[in-house]
């Protein structure tokens, strides 16, 4: 049956290509739309993912890493006494303005890191070193934000919150979900830029002793400091992502676009399969007349659908790789994880199999008698 199904499929190249276009369209759309979505939404948890902390501790009901509330810095001592905690350091995040060479201002997110541990500092540096922030008025900014900040270079001098700032290093690809660029510096200098009392901070970043259970330590921290919440890194990352998903309708928007793509792909595949079957009703009648069972006829359609899904998925995934290679940027990253590619292939396979049901229903009605009567 494989041979009959595949050879008859390949024989009608025009319709095969049309169906493949539908499958490839679905694969590309699901992966690129999904990749854009994941790339965009992952920005919401960028600091959490790269912060090197096992646990994030912040104010009660903390819901987004970029929107913290002030908490007393002295509580860090209580956290350090919790069993399983290897290190706990204060972390400061807040909004300020940076002066531009043209005389304007640009809003920035100032991130203050602990001098000793450098927990939560900038990563992926292209110029300078992480400890360059120890230099006088030293800050690290991202080279992808050049346009907004009027193309700063290492050695340039700016003002943040009315205080002097020297650019001492540059990172690449640290672009958050917010439009404001991140500026990394020491905790004390960040407090100065933000005009905050150094006695308050935004979070405590906690690293665990080897073998310590993150959930248990979180529970212990909540018990020790009831005014605070504590979450393992992955959970707080999801909390931050969920904030934008639920409060902006971003998920629905991307999801709807992806669903439309899937539907269009499904309609193309179904329509093409149906047209192929209509063209070959007589042949299916012949097969039935010479003794093909309903199961065998059905298997021909399923094999054809499977083949289209497989070939279309391969072409689609190769196309997606090309799109990611050429078009993914830190500003609009396309992150296509393996599960998304695999999921899209399974989805397309399901689409093709469902799409083959429609022509099968038509074939079921074909009476082999028509072969003799024609």
């Amino acid at each position, binding site marked *: 049956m494989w*041979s009959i199904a595949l050879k008859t499929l390949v024989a009608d190249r025009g319709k095969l290509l049309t169906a493949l276009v539908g499958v490839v369209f679905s694969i590309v759309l699901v992966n690129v739309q999904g990749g854009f979505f994941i790339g965009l939404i992952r920005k919401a948890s960028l600091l959490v993912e790269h912060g090197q902390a096992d646990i994030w501790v912040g104010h009660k009901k903390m819901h987004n890493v970029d929107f913290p509330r002030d908490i007393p810095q002295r509580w860090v001592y209580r956290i350090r006494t919790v069993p399983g905690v290897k290190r706990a350091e204060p972390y400061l995040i807040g909004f300020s303005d940076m002066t531009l060479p043209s005389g304007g201002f640009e809003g920035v997110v100032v991130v203050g890191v602990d001098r000793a541990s450098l927990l939560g500092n900038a990563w992926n540096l292209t110029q300078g070193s992480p400890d360059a922030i120890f230099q006088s008025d030293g800050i690290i900014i991202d080279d992808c934000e050049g346009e907004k900040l009027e193309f700063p270079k290492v050695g340039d001098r700016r003002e943040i919150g009315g205080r002097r700032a020297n650019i001492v290093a540059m990172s690449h690809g640290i672009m958050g979900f917010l439009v404001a660029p991140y500026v990394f510096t020491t905790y004390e200098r960040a407090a100065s830029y933000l005009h905050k009392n150094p006695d308050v901070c935004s979070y405590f970043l906690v690293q665990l002793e080897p073998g310590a259970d993150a959930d248990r330590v979180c529970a212990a921290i909540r018990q020790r400091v009831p005014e605070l919440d504590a979450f393992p890194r992955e959970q707080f990352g999801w909390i931050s992502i969920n904030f934008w998903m639920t409060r902006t309708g971003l998920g629905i928007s991307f999801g709807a676009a992806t669903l439309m793509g899937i539907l269009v792909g499904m309609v193309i595949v179904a329509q093409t399969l149906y047209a192929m079957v209509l063209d070959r009703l007589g042949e299916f009648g*012949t097969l039935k*007349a*010479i003794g093909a069972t309903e199961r065998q006829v059905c298997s021909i359609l399923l094999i054809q659908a499977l083949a289209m899904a497989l070939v279309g998925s391969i072409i689609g995934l190769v196309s997606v790789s090309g799109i990611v290679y050429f078009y993914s940027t830190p500003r609009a990253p396309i992150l296509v994880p393996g599960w998304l590619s695999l999921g899209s292939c399974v989805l397309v396979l399901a689409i093709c199999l469902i799409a083959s049901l429609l022509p099968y229903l038509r074939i079921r009605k074909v009476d082999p008698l028509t072969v*003799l009567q024609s």
Partner: protein
Amino acid sequence: MIINSQPYEMSSKPIAVNIEGICKSYRCGNTVTPVLEGVDLVAQREECVFLTGPSGSGKTTLLSILGCILSADRGRAQILGEDIFALDEEARTTLRRERLGFVFQRFHLIRGLTSLDNVCVPLALRGTSPLKAHDRGMALLDTVGLADKAKMHPRNLSAGECQRVALARALSGDPDLLLADEPTASLDATNGQEVMQLLRRLTTQEGRTAIIVTHDQRIFHFADKRFYLENGRIAEAPESRSTALPESEQ
């Protein structure tokens, strides 16, 4: 009415097809049109039986009933020892696949397949291994003189060649009963004679039975027995010409 020289009761060969009192009507709305009204027919092994008659006389309907594609309203039908009206749909499909071979007026070859692939279709339906099917298909194409066109698609073959491929396909499953519907209707005289010579040689001489529906008087001499069907009944043929097999074909 049997329009041939040898009464079948005299033969000792086993009976392949035996139908009695077959009636069939088609219903269209409230109108019932009788097509077959009590047809009896017997065909023995190795016989080549022709069903002739004018258009609309019920030949194709009778062939469809013999091929287990259509059910009769009344009557009895024993095909290759099976009471086909007692069989369920699956068993009838199995009987078609395993023991019957079909040749159609318009060949009904599958366009996307080569000659060889078309011949191998019944074998694929039976689950024969591709290698065995290939060997059997090539042998049959060789028999019908088309071994050199095994890789060609039907669109590149002449009508006569297509019908020979269709004949090879019908025989690939080694059927006991071959049913052919106007096998020469789409062919010119020369091709028609060639196909019939092949059909005759590859069926009755190999122990099969053939039942052939035809209008084509040019091939009547290939028949062992000929039944003339008119108004749904076996009737006397209008022509008086001899239909006995020529010496060379016996």
